[in-house]
């Protein structure tokens, strides 16, 4: 199998001993493009761009707030794609979007929109394996990598099927719950990453509930990397793009020690 851009880069970096860091930034939020550039400069390996949706069931208060603000400022998926095209940060971009955004645009059209915006991958958190067929056909044809989520609730027989369909990386959900910052890293985060590492060669990144540099370091003792969502978005809303750059540098240093 030939890998897409993101998976090719991730595998090469992992095999060279680097831990992977993927900050999440809500598309269209004030300062989002500068924040992406700052994150890239500070050592991010890819960026996950959130496409704001009216009903984000997998997101906690911080990302809900960010999505709401972006929507109120008139942001649309199309305006985000247009602005993403100008980024040229030298690392792969992924989108995180709820399935109705894809469904409404149409699978082929959405895949083409991503492709022409220079976006490599898509994460669709309410599109589980059983429902993913039609989208994956369109995404595969366009060369868009579909990241699959694996959850702590998955029985052993399910994980290999999820991993087999994953392109780019496997998103190892860190805990039972929605996105947001927690006081400590849940035991389930490393437990699931360990189960996944045992059954797949696809890079395994932990996201949801990885809330600071120390928790990222802990997750990376098992996983190939981390996704940082609410902790990044909160810094963008409170401190602006510079605060995002500083934070990404701090996490980079912690996971690479």
């Amino acid at each position, binding site marked *: 199998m030939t890998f897409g851009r993101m998976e090719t880069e991730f595998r090469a970096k992992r095999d060279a001993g680097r831990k992977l860091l993927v900050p999440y930034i809500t598309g269209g939020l004030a300062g989002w493009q500068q924040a992406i550039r700052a994150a890239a400069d500070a050592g991010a390996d890819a960026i996950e761009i959130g496409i704001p949706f009216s009903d984000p069931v997998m997101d906690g208060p911080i990302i809900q707030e960010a999505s709401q603000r972006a929507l109120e400022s008139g942001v649309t998926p199309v305006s985000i794609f247009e602005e993403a095209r100008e980024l040229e940060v030298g690392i792969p971009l992924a989108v995180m979007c709820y399935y109705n955004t894809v469904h409404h645009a149409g699978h082929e059209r959405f895949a083409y929109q991503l492709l022409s915006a220079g976006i490599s991958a898509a994460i669709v958190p309410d599109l*589980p*394996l059983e429902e993913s067929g039609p989208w994956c056909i369109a995404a595969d044809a366009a060369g868009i990598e579909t990241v699959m*989520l694996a959850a702590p609730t998955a029985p052993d027989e399910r994980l290999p099927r999820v991993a087999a369909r994953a392109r780019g990386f496997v998103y190892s959900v860190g805990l039972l719950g929605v996105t947001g910052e927690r006081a400590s890293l849940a035991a389930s985060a490393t437990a699931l990453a360990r189960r996944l590492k045992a059954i797949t060669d696809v890079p395994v990144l932990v996201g949801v509930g990885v809330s600071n540099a120390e928790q990222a370091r802990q997750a990376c003792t098992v996983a190939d990397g981390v996704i940082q969502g609410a902790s990044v978005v909160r810094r963008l809303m409170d401190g602006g793009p510079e605060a995002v750059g500083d934070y990404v540098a701090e996490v980079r240093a912690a996971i690479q020690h």
Partner: protein
Amino acid sequence: MSIMAEPSAEGRFGEFGGRFVPETLVPACQELEAAFREAWADPLFRAELHQLLKQYAGRPSIITECHNLGRKLGIRLILKREDLNHTGSHKINNVLGQALLAKRMGKTRLVAETGAGQHGVASATAAALLGMSCKVYMGAVDVERQALNVFRMKLLGAEVEAVHSGSRTLKDAVNEAMRDWVATVGETYYCLGSVMGPHPYPWMVREFHRVIGDEASAQCRELLGGSDPDFIVACVGGGSNAMGIFSGFVDTDARLIGVEPAGGAAVGRGMPGVVHGMRSYLMQDEYGQVQEAHSISAGLDYPGVGPEHSYLASIGRAEYPTVTDAEVIDAFQLMARSEGIIPALECAHAMAWIAREAPSMQGKVVLMNLSGRGDKDVAQMMEILG
């Protein structure tokens, strides 16, 4: 085979339905489907539920022929009296079924969403009866306009959380209940209040409400000398009371009418979309953002609709007209003054359609599902009518 048969293995009614949930919830939905299949095939479970419906909820509910309104409108109007059930609406049928199932699955905690508060009250009631804890999510707008039901839930021992995100109505209460479920899936049972959500909910909730249609079918045949009504009319938000009564008549010649509020017409104004775990008609903008519904009735203030309704609409078996808030206010008063029955604002939608369309139904037999009583709406109507 009935038009309203079991959905496909993927939970589809035609091209609608499915299971669009976060990966965390997939095993929970599969487990629920297996548990429901097993329970529904178990005569002991069915007997236990039947006992509860009979001795606790007060089933069977009666039918009432409205002679005054019938004369006035030139039709024969029959009401299925779900308003007379314990807790005041049809919601108790589904909740008793799901709560028994939850108990059988070893769950200790119920979460529920509610719009008008009727499903929340029913859930709180079942939790009190069966010794479970209960948390109800309710949009902040609805908490305000349905204060009486909020207090009822608290009296019954439930915790009510006002939801301040999005449109702060039913849609957002569902989001918040799903977020709770994702975080607590081990011990929590999500007691969904309508024929919506991911498979198996639309099918399971319809089966728990089938009793409405089954009873009404037998009762009408007795009243009508063996024949069926010409029209079956019910209001539709998510669509559970309509599904319940439709299920008894879908394979007859009766016309099935699901009345949507003009400001929340998922079938009438929506297009296929995916939210809350299902593919169904959905009010959305040109980028797929879900639009806010606006209705006088909190119970119908929902931009989506159960997937089996979308299916019945797509094959032309059921029709989904709309009525305006002004027509609903008139119908609410019409029923109260003509028949001495104060309907819930939700059911007043069905009454409004019947009153408007009566000239084209002269001499016909119309069965309306009076799915709830209007006590909860009296304060709101007092403000509107001044």
